């Protein structure tokens, strides 16, 4: 077990290193020259060269990458071109809002997805089952920005139940969470359905029924816990979906998280911020996958550790 954990941890570190190489290479390849942006249009060639030298941008790729990497390890993600502040500070200030949104989305996708999957498995082969599975297909096929805009239109503009956008109360949280969670709910309902069907086929379920336990008790007390665990283990992997989703959802709802930060940076071509958010997201994804890898063997001892 310990060897497995250590190996997984090393893999995660290796991947993060690779991620930093790629983000830096992208930064390096960009046609937009940061020195020109800092120096302004009227700068002489000599001034431009001086700034380039001061920033170390005339050094070879490897030297520049080493500086970037040592900065990263100390939490330095560089400076924004336009906002005149540290990228790490901008991200740190906005991270809590994004985490809150993700928590809302996880609650939402589990509530919707697990319920749908459970009902579909119990009513397997019926019209209810088919309807729910079509709904899950619609959920995974729906573009998140369209879901967000439509939720806004119906529940905020038309019905007035929720605010049109912004941040603050629990009312602000509901629509963005649903919009972000619907995609995952689609996947969860399908996984939950197949997991539940697998469990319901097992002998111990038949034994429980045979010894006279009520159907509801067997379902909820004996089948559900075993069916739900492998599905819950996927939450870590969801983080990857969320990291793309929050860029869209936060810009639709004006939610002040790192997704909106990235979106605003895209509009102004503020590359260090885009790179910073990409890097933070990649860390979150690697940690999420690591979490899933660590949790899964605890939940299901039948899974062999490799």
């Amino acid at each position, binding site marked *: 077990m310990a060897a497995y954990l250590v190996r997984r941890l090393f893999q995660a570190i290796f991947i993060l290193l690779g991620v930093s190489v*790629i983000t830096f290479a992208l930064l390096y390849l960009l046609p937009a020259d940061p020195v020109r942006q800092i120096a302004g249009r009227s700068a002489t060639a000599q001034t431009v060269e001086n700034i380039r030298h001061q920033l170390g941008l005339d050094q070879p790729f490897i030297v520049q990458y080493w500086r970037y990497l040592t900065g990263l390890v100390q939490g330095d993600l560089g400076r924004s071109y336009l906002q005149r502040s540290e990228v790490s500070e901008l991200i740190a200030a906005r991270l809590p809002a994004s985490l809150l949104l993700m928590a809302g989305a996880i609650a939402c996708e589990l509530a919707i997805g697990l319920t749908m999957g459970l009902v579909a498995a119990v009513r397997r082969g019926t019209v209810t089952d088919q309807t729910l599975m079509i709904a899950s297909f619609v959920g995974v096929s729906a573009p998140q920005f369209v879901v967000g805009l439509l939720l806004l239109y119906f529940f905020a503009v038309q019905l007035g139940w929720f605010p049109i956008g912004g941040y603050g109360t629990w009312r602000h949280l509901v629509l963005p969470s649903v919009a972000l969670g619907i995609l995952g709910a689609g996947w969860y309902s399908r996984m939950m359905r197949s997991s539940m069907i697998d469990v319901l086929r097992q002998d111990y379920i038949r034994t429980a029924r045979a010894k006279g336990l009520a159907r509801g008790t067997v379902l909820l007390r004996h089948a559900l816990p075993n069916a739900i665990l492998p599905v819950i283990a996927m939450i870590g992997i969801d983080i990857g979906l969320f990291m793309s989703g929050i860029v869209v959802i936060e810009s639709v709802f004006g939610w002040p998280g790192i997704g909106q930060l990235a979106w605003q940076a*895209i509009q102004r071509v503020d590359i260090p911020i885009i790179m910073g958010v990409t890097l933070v997201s990649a860390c979150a994804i690697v940690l999420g996958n690591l979490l899933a890898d660590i949790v899964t063997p605890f939940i299901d001892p039948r899974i062999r550790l490799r």
Partner: protein
Amino acid sequence: MSEPISPDLAAPVVSAPRYDSAWSRLLRRPLAILGLVIILATVLGAVFAPWLTAFEPDAQMFDGLTIEGAPLPPDGKFWLGTDLLGRDLLTRILYGARTSLVIGIAANGTALIIGTLIGVTAGFFRGFVGAVLMRFTDLMMAFPALLLAICLAAIFQPSLWIVAMVIALVNWVQTARVIFTQTSSLAEREFIDAERTLGAGSVRILFRHILPHLVPTIIVWGTLGISTTVLLEATLSYLGVGVQPPTPSWGNIIFENQTYFQAAPWLVFFPGMAILALALGFNLVGDALRDILDPTQRGRE
């Protein structure tokens, strides 16, 4: 009665080839048929767009806006209403279908080729190269697809083909993983050993015995992948870093018109439904194909 039996009964002595039967099994599934109908309708709409609508996609019409300059709701002349520049929305959606399909096929085709090449190479030859390729694939898995695509789109000025290539560059990863798993389990099977003992070279084994087994997987992922591609293109275009106006794309129609969306929700609703329908179509067909072509995956994710 000169003929002893009807021609129908006389014909199928030899069992039909595998893909015929897969096709007929596909046509027995209502959901797959729904998906095929959606895809076919989109393809026909895209191909025959100039004959299906009386308007040009870029024509800004005087009678396409209210006196105050607001877009028109759906009516007898403009079936799906007009957009903020007084262009016919139905026309733009039909021409936008071209964008979605071209990018869907080009981007996903490229992603499929990259993914298959990497997966097969890593799975069949293993060793150092294989390990490097798969670690690289793991690495790419760690990037959020949308953000990586945005970074790439910021580096290259977005045009239709650049957007397609950007999407291909972030989308090959899933295919590579699946193909790698399949190839490496195939490479360990006894019939491959037998072939090798008989003196067959790597190239022969690869093309005669490995690749044919991968065809069903490639078909399944090719179909499911188009759905992902369509969604990613729409999202990039909605964020303004995908296909650039005036070329109509379902995503940039919403991007251009979203300031009006409270007053003119049809400008979000119709293109949004088009994206949803096309992605759903490919998902339904792809899922059915997975059930049919790959029995080991049946009912699983």
